[in-house]
Structures are given as C-alpha cells and as structure tokens.
C-alpha cells in the first residue's frame, strides 16, 4: 500500500498536474476561439526553454526564473495570434487548426535553432526523496508540482468568477453573440485568453522539465494527453480541465500498477495510448465532457 502511494499515486498526481495546467489553456482557447490549438504543447516547450536560459544566465532556481519563461511563452502566443490566427478568424475553424499545426512546427524549429536539439536539464544529479512520517518517500518536485497546480487552479477560479475580465471571458465562451451585443470586446477577451493559457502552459513546461528533462519535443508529446484532459473535463470549463488532467494522469500511471498478478496491467510504453482511448470514448459517449462543456 505504501509502495502504491510512493511509486504510483504521487507521481500520477504530479503528471496529472502538468496535464491539468496545459489542458486549461486548450480548453479556454477551444471555448473562446473555437479551435483546437495544436501549438499549445510547443508554447509549453518554449516556456521551459525560456526559463532554462534565465537559469543559465542568473543561476537561479527554476521556479524563480519562471517569469522569464512565462514572458516568452505569452509573447509567442500573442504574436502567433496576431499574425497567424486573427486573419483566419472569419473562416471555418479548421483553417485555424491547420495554421496552429504550422505554428507548432515553427516554434519547435526556433527552439531547435536557438537551443539546439539535444536534451537539457535544469539541475543534474540525483535528489534524495523527502521522507514523511518514516513511511512516505516522495519527490519534493512532485509535491511542488501538485501544490503549484492547485494554487493556480484556485487563483484562476477566483479570477474567472470575481474579476470583470474573467467574467467577460466566461460570457464570450458561453455565448459569443450575446456577449458582443452586451458590449464586451471580443479581442480583449481573446488576448486575456492567450495570456492565461500561455502562462499556465509555460508553468507546466517548467514543471515537466524539472521532473525529467527539457527537449524540443516535450510539449508535442504531451499534447494528446492534454487534449484528452480538456475533452474529459468539458470544453470551455477550466475547472473541468483541471479535474480532467488529474484524472488522465491517474489513469495513465495507475494502469501500469500490477493490479492483476505481478505484471503491469498495461505496458508503460503504451501509457499514452490510454489517454487516446479515453478521449475517443468521451467523444462518442459523452461529447460534452464531465462538466457539461460546449459542443463543437
């Protein structure tokens, strides 16, 4: 049982928190701009690399250098929106999807151009696990990731329900026509969406990079699971996306636990196939997701 918590449950929640942070952005962009943002994983990668550069330059702790990564990711998202997504806004959304596919590749090639294709680490060496009550041996990184995600989710909830910008974002997500009749500026709302989405994505990128390593495909490889989380939670429901992220993380990690016999139930190499399976099931059986999100 202790083993289960140490080696499966806590890592699962840490992985889930990374998915959750990424999925919130995808879900909000889906809800407000109505297209699936394929470049979200690469925005995440860019955030991680931006932070990495600040760590190299100043020798700070990655979390202290995080604002640099966030700034880079937000700038990239806003530039991409202004240059590539906005001109296509009146067209069927599939064109924006194709454009985002292109943006994903552009960001990735820039990352490889400036930082090189090799893997990087924030900090090398083995870190001793934290021992709690003499029984739980957990990585402090995992606890950090879970804590940061929960705090950000609470802050986001407060922002969306208490501030003017947050409430207009929810209004545009629920009914864009009604929102524009009521005098809300859609472009302002869209800008806020990108800023929040990119901020959370950059944070997720740094957390993922601290846990393992930073490389150019890290975000792209997480994309599928983040989409699955967003759909599971319900499109346009940020809190649903957080829940969806934790759920997908739990399912992926816990499926490798030897529930039956001594072999892992699902081979760890096929973990990401599970996220895909869940996503297809959700789309077929309950397309609005757990939280009654919007239907495309």
């Amino acid at each position, binding site marked *: 049982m202790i083993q289960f918590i140490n080696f499966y449950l806590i890592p699962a929640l840490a992985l889930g928190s990374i998915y959750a942070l990424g999925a919130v952005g995808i879900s909000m962009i889906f809800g407000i701009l109505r297209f699936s943002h394929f470049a979200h994983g690469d925005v995440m990668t860019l955030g991680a690399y931006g932070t990495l550069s600040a760590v190299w330059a100043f020798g700070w702790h990655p979390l202290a250098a995080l604002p640099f990564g966030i700034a880079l990711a937000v700038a990239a998202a806003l530039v991409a929106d202004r240059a590539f997504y906005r001109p296509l806004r009146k067209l069927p959304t*599939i064109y924006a999807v194709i454009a985002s596919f292109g943006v994903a*590749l552009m960001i*990735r090639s*820039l990352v490889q151009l400036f930082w090189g294709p090799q893997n990087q680490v924030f900090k090398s060496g083995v870190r001793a696990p934290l021992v709690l009550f003499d029984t739980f041996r957990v990585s402090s990184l995992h606890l950090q990731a879970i804590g940061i995600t929960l705090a950000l989710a609470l802050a986001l909830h407060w922002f969306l329900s208490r501030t003017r910008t947050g409430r207009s974002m929810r209004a545009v997500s629920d009914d864009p026509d009604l929102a524009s009749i009521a005098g809300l500026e859609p472009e302002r709302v869209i800008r806020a969406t990108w800023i929040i989405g990119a901020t959370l994505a950059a944070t997720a990128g740094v957390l993922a990079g601290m846990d393992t390593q930073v490389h150019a495909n890290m975000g792209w490889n997480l994309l*599928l699971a983040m989409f699955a989380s967003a759909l599971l939670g319900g499109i346009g429901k940020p809190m649903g996306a957080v829940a969806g992220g934790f759920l997908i993380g739990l399912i992926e990690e816990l499926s490798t636990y030897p529930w039956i016999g001594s072999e892992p139930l699902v081979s760890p*190499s*096929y973990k990401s196939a599970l996220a895909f399976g869940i996503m*297809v099931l959700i789309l077929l059986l309950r397309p609005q997701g757990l939280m009654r999100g919007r239907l495309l």
Partner: protein
Amino acid sequence: MDLYGLTQYLVSFLIAGGIYALLCLALNVQWGYGGLFNAGVAGFFAVGAYTSAILTAAPATGHVGGFALPIPLGLLAAALVAGATGWAVARICVRLKSDYLAIASIGIAEILRLSIINEQWLTNGSLGIANIPRPLEAWITGEASSWVFVVVVWSVVGASWWFCNRLYDSPWGRALRAIRDNEEAAHAVGKDVNALRLQTYVIGCALMGVAGALSAHHFKFLSPAASDPTLVTFLVWVMLVAGGSGNNRGAVTGALVVWGIWSLTEILTSRLPPDWTARSSYLRMFLVGLLLQFVLQRYRRGLVPERSPPLRFAELPAGLDAINETSRIHNKPRSP
C-alpha cells in the same frame, strides 16, 4: 556541381518527389475530396512501409519477416494493411467533427509510432529492417537501378493519378464533395455521409501505405526514424495546401514545387560549415511553416485552384443554345 552529381540529384529528386506526389494525392482524397482532416499521415505511411518491408525483405533473425516475396505483392499488401488500419480508425472516428478528427488522427499516429518502436518481434524496434529489395535488382544494378526505380515510382503515381481523377469525376466523388461543402444538404438528399467518409478515409490511407512501401524500397532500410511526422505529415500538408487542395493537378504540382524548394535549399545550406548545416535545417523548417501561413492567408485556393468539372450533356445536340436551354431548365426555381 558536375554532370554526374546533377543526374544523381535529379534521380533522388524524382524518386522522393514521386513519393511525396503520391502522399499528396492520398491526402487530397481525404481532405480535398472529403474534407477529412488527417494529421496522422506518417502513421499510415509507416504501416505501409513496414508491411512491404517485412514481406519482401531477405530472411533475418530477431523478428518476423524475410518472406522474400515479390515487390508488387508487397505494395499490394501495404495498400491492404494500411487501408485496413484506416478502416479500423475511420469506423470509430469518422463521425467526429473536424477538430476532433484532427486530434484523433494525431493520437493514432502516436499509437502506431509507439507500436513500431515497442513491438520488436515484428519490426525489430529501433534497429530497423535491412536488406529490403529494389525492383529488378537481380538484373539491373548500380546507376541504372535508380532509374528503374524512378520509372516504378512514377508509374505508381500515374496509376494513382488516373484512379483519383476517375474518383473525382464519378458520382461517388460528386457526392463526396457535396458532403464536404454542405453536410446537411447532402444528408438531406439521401447521401450516406458516414459511409462515404469511411470509404474516402480508407482509400486515402491505402495510397499512403503504398507511398510508405515505395520509400522503404527506395532506401532499402527501414527504421522508426523513417516516418518522422514533421517530414512526412507536415510537409505533405504544406504541399497540398500550397498546390491547391481538391484537385489532383494541384496536389502533384504542390508536391513537386515544395519538394523542389526544400531540396534546393538543402543543397545551398550543405555548403555551410557543419555546425551551421545542422542549424539551417531548423531554419528551413521554420520557413516552411511560414510558407504555410502565407498560403493560408493569401492563396487559400493554392497554385492550381480547384475547378468544378464542366457540365456535360452527351445526349443533346452540340451547340451553345442547347446547353443554355438545358441549364435554364435545370436552374429553374422549383416549388417545394
């Protein structure tokens, strides 16, 4: 560059260009005819490549394969297996809305990639499959064998071109374009939307499989790196969008033009110092992404835009008046 180098370059350009042209035709059937977004081209490409490689390669230890079957059988099997994979996917996913289908196709490509890396008994994992034959290798060797392969690739492209054009002009193709342009209307006049979509998806995947098989025979060696999504999926999308989706001439033009730009810039950058050569490939990738954005915003219809096939009235006497008369009758507003 001397003449020898130039012909060598021409041969490899024609082979790769032909394989890309085939991929573009395949994607055009799915996206151009049917409006189905497939971001998993690399997955079906890999399925075809491995099918043909396993069936035709010389016997090897460590993995299934080495049946040393004739190459045409390998190509046929590649089409069948890739088509069957596409069928399994489409059975579930084809009824999803466009964005969801796009995400699902990425997931499928990812699962196919994982299985190719992990199922070592079948694919020899990352070590890859060697000794894949080229057509007529026993009789024609050396330089000439590449020319033979150029002919093989382009005859496959020609056959697929003919096949795709027939599809486009057929009632089936018309129904498909009707669905692409207005799903509800097509459904209302009794077209089976899901069945038609499933069929296009399968046909497109089968052609992608053939393209994969050809590339395996071209390189004579196959490893998971051969189906790199950025080089296969992404480049093919740029080619199709730039060439003009919805028509086959556009698809092939786009493939050759974009592949021409891609390989010409490769020649130019290969003269830079080694460190810069590696980096410039990323810069080229970035510029291809920029090209896609430019085409999407300015030339959405592509280099060779799609044109509806002309109306044909075979039974009527030739002459402008007769045609005008018929189209007037056809276009007369009808009461419901």
